């Protein structure tokens, strides 16, 4: 993908719009889904798949690809939306989301979904897997990178900190981790469930190269990915993305904040309409 000048990421805005739209369509099919998260992370996924990453849509297992690890498996609806937009999953499969025998179950599965690099669902797995992938890529002399998306709630898991220690120990400069700080987890605001701030300072103290950006500001996200890729430090890179649940659909943004946003049957079309309104605005 070519880089668009900062401030003019219109093609990425269009990609993000289409990822959100795919996610809403899947939510409508299933009647539910982690749509708040899908909407908040769409911009990060647009930048990952249409600016930062190297891959071949027709060849999801291409050896030279950058690996994208979805640690927060419940965000699968968002990643499917991006994989469809990227041409890795056929558009027509969207309608199977969450249905019996679908390749697109509600939580991501490496064993049968194209473009899914790990089986998620149990939180706190992704960074440990990513450490192994990065060690393996280095062993092979590959210049491919590993991108790992996880959520702020996963910071509660001890295994995440095992991997954070380890990635710095092994100087995994081929690892770009992205933590989605939407400040929502199952039992409430993540910062109240288990205080993790000041996150940037903590991660830097653990030996990571850390940036913190508004994860819904495409220009900022593009810049952060560019810096993460070009940084010469022999350190793993972390991009802390502050995001807004329900982003792009104002009435969902305004809805009482909840890990699992309830959307009534008639509201999916309203959400699509609201998304479209924002697109042309």
């Amino acid at each position, binding site marked *: 993908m070519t880089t668009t000048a900062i401030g003019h990421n219109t093609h990425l805005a269009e990609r993000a719009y289409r990822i959100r739209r795919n996610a809403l369509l899947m939510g409508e099919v299933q009647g539910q889904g982690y749509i708040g998260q899908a909407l908040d992370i769409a911009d990060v996924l647009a930048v990952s798949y249409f600016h930062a990453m190297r891959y071949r849509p027709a060849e999801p297992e291409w050896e030279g690809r950058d690996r994208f690890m979805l640690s927060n498996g419940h965000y699968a609806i968002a990643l499917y939306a991006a994989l469809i937009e990227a041409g890795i999953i056929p558009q027509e499969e969207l309608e199977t989301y969450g249905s019996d025998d679908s390749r697109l179950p509600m939580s991501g599965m490496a064993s049968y979904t194209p473009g899914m690099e790990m089986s998620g669902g149990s939180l706190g*797995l992704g960074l*440990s*897997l990513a450490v192994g992938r990065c060690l393996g890529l280095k062993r092979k002399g590959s210049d491919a990178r590993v991108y790992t998306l996880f959520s702020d709630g996963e910071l509660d898991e001890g295994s995440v900190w095992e*991997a954070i220690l*380890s990635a710095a120990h092994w100087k995994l400069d081929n690892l770009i981790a992205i933590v989605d700080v939407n400040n929502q987890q199952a039992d409430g605001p993540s910062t109240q469930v288990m205080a993790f701030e000041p996150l940037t300072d903590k991660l830097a103290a653990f030996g990571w190269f850390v940036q913190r950006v508004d994860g819904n500001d495409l220009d900022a996200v593009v810049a952060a990915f560019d810096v993460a890729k070009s940084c010469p430090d022999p350190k793993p890179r972390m991009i802390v993305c502050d995001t807004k649940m329900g982003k792009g659909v104002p009435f969902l943004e305004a809805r009482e904040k909840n890990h699992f946003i309830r959307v009534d049957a008639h509201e999916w079309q309203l959400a699509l309409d609201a998304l479209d309104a924002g697109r042309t605005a």
Partner: protein
Amino acid sequence: MSRPTPAPATGAKPKLKTSAMIASIAGEGQRTTAAPFGNALVELGKTREDIVGLTADLAKYTDLHIFAKAYPDRFYQMGMAEQLLMGAASGLAHEGFTPFVTTYAVFASRRAYDFVHQTIAEENRNVKIVCALPGLTSGYGPSHQAAEDLALFRAMPNLMVIDPCDAHEIEQAVPAIAAHNGPVYMRLLRGNVPLVLDEYDYKFEIGKAKLLRDGADVLVVSSGIMTMRALEVATMLERDKVDVAVLHVPTIKPLDTATILREAGRSGRLVVVAENHTVIGGLGEAVAGALLRAGVHPPFRQIGLPDEFLDAGALPTLHDRYGISANAMAASIKGWLG
């Protein structure tokens, strides 16, 4: 549970001391081989460059240090972090390597279970989990006694489960599990490991139970160190005119049901399953289930660890106490025969 104040040791026989955490299970005067796992892995590593070793601060205690010394750039010290250990091994396997992962059986099974389940077994990654201190092979207490590792790992789809008997078998099992494309859990004996099966013209084959000796009165079905105990018991019981057959079942999963049914179906024999494991969920119940499902109903008994947290102490004391020493096992069998 309270326990009574112990009486001071009196008389000629002093109480034994708690065995060192990594005490050898070899009996006095028994032939042994040093570090069969570590040396076999070094040998295999000469031709298999895809093999890498990972441990969680237990290289020295799992004989992986020998591999680390031979191939320092193929060894990954992951620190005392078993979840990371399993996840990272899965990641390396996904990139085409064949990781041999070592820790103690308690930590692989009890602490890292979900990581093994999700990142290794479910994703069907080519990871070999090789764990020391299986069953009751440590006198250190429940923290280090993996009495339930087989039950936990048997219940995991995709995962092959191996319980080798001695150094001879470990040496053969290492290349065999490396040649198998898929996740494996193997119990490990480390340090000076008894050498027994070389005298039985024995060859390890994945998924195969082997009759080591025949006998008309009792069929012992066993795995791991209980096979060497069973062979000892068979010799002991010859003096009592009791004829004991020993069927060694090193692959707990997939179970060699055909051979087990064939041997257990021979009429007139007491079938005794002996395992270094809790009687819940291990080889005993696996065999019992296979027999029941096939309608084969011989007299059936189990020798194994009780469903309780085990004592700390000297291994010989504990093996006697819980009925898995050769003497205790012989006494049980004689009692059952009446």
